[in-house]
């Protein structure tokens, strides 16, 4: 069975800006995924005090899930739920997603902390998931 991933970008006000699932979709789990990612936010806060790096590796575990996090300098959190450990590829995925987010933010028409609805953004994130994760 191919692995499943849940990815979310969480704004500075703790609201989700973007969500996606990669691999085998298990839609019935979506709310659980959101819950797990949200619950891990506090642990991200703790972990970032211990680290000077954006990539915080695995910050939480829940059943079969690992929760990895990446925090941008202005405290936008990238959260990934994954089953297998693969730190290097997850780091690569986060770094490229950060760059995509930065491009979105620098667009004068984007309001910070607003949901990212552009189809192009989703397409690019899906492509990064195929490149690094699947």
């Amino acid at each position: 069975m191919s692995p499943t991933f849940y990815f979310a970008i969480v704004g500075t006000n703790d609201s989700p800006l973007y969500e996606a699932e990669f691999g085998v979709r298990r839609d019935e789990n979506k709310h659980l995924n959101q819950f797990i990612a949200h619950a891990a936010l506090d642990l991200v806060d703790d972990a970032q005090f211990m680290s000077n790096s954006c990539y915080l590796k695995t910050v939480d575990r829940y059943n079969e899930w690992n929760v990895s996090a990446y925090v941008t300098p202005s405290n936008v959190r990238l959260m990934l739920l994954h089953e297998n450990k693969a730190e290097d590829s997850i780091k690569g995925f986060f770094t490229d997603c950060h760059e995509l987010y930065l491009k979105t933010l620098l667009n004068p028409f984007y309001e910070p902390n607003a949901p990212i609805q552009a189809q192009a953004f989703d397409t690019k994130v899906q492509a990064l998931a195929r490149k690094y994760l699947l």
Partner: protein
Amino acid sequence: MSADSRTTARLMSALSLDGGNAVEGRQISESALEFLLPELVNTVISTTVETKRIAARLSLGLDPEEEPQEDTTDDSTRSDSTTMASGWTELPEDSEVLEQVYVKLETIGFRVGRRLAERYAPVNRRLTDTLDIVKFVCKDMWMVLFNRQVDNLKTNHRGIYVLQDNKFKWFLRMSSNHGGAAAARRAQPYTWLPCGIIRGVLDSFGVNAVVSPETLGLPQCTFQIKVVSNE
């Protein structure tokens, strides 16, 4: 090439990023910015006056477009701004309009600050302490904005920080032509934009603050940051 892939290619070339690290980007002439700023201020003033007039006429049930008298006032504002050699505009007397001009310029600055912060924030050194964040404004941000650092930073260690720039760049061209209180008044809007930028940068790092300017004599300028407790 599809429109989307063109956009991507364009953005990729604009944004030479290395894992979030901003590298030396595109350069333009400093005078491009020096020409833009006064006209930006003029535009915000004149559009605020105009939209207020349109709103007033709409509320009276009148056609906002048909008012020949206003057109002449609009033209005179415009020729004012173009005939003055330095390009500085007189501020509107209407305090309500002036307040709106302040809010708009501050908002424009805030949006700029949010972007600059994420663009230039260090990725290998996390800024969590407010003093560190303020220092980032004084050093790194001021370099991006004005090619210099602030001259002096004072704090009472209770949430108030005062940044002092003795040669505030956006005042330099101004102070030679005009002096005294009139110049200080005319200079005001040029501090509202950086106030917004500072607030935007601080906000990016989760620091909620009020930023206010003070000018004792051009070209000196201070910015007071008052941290607002989130609790």
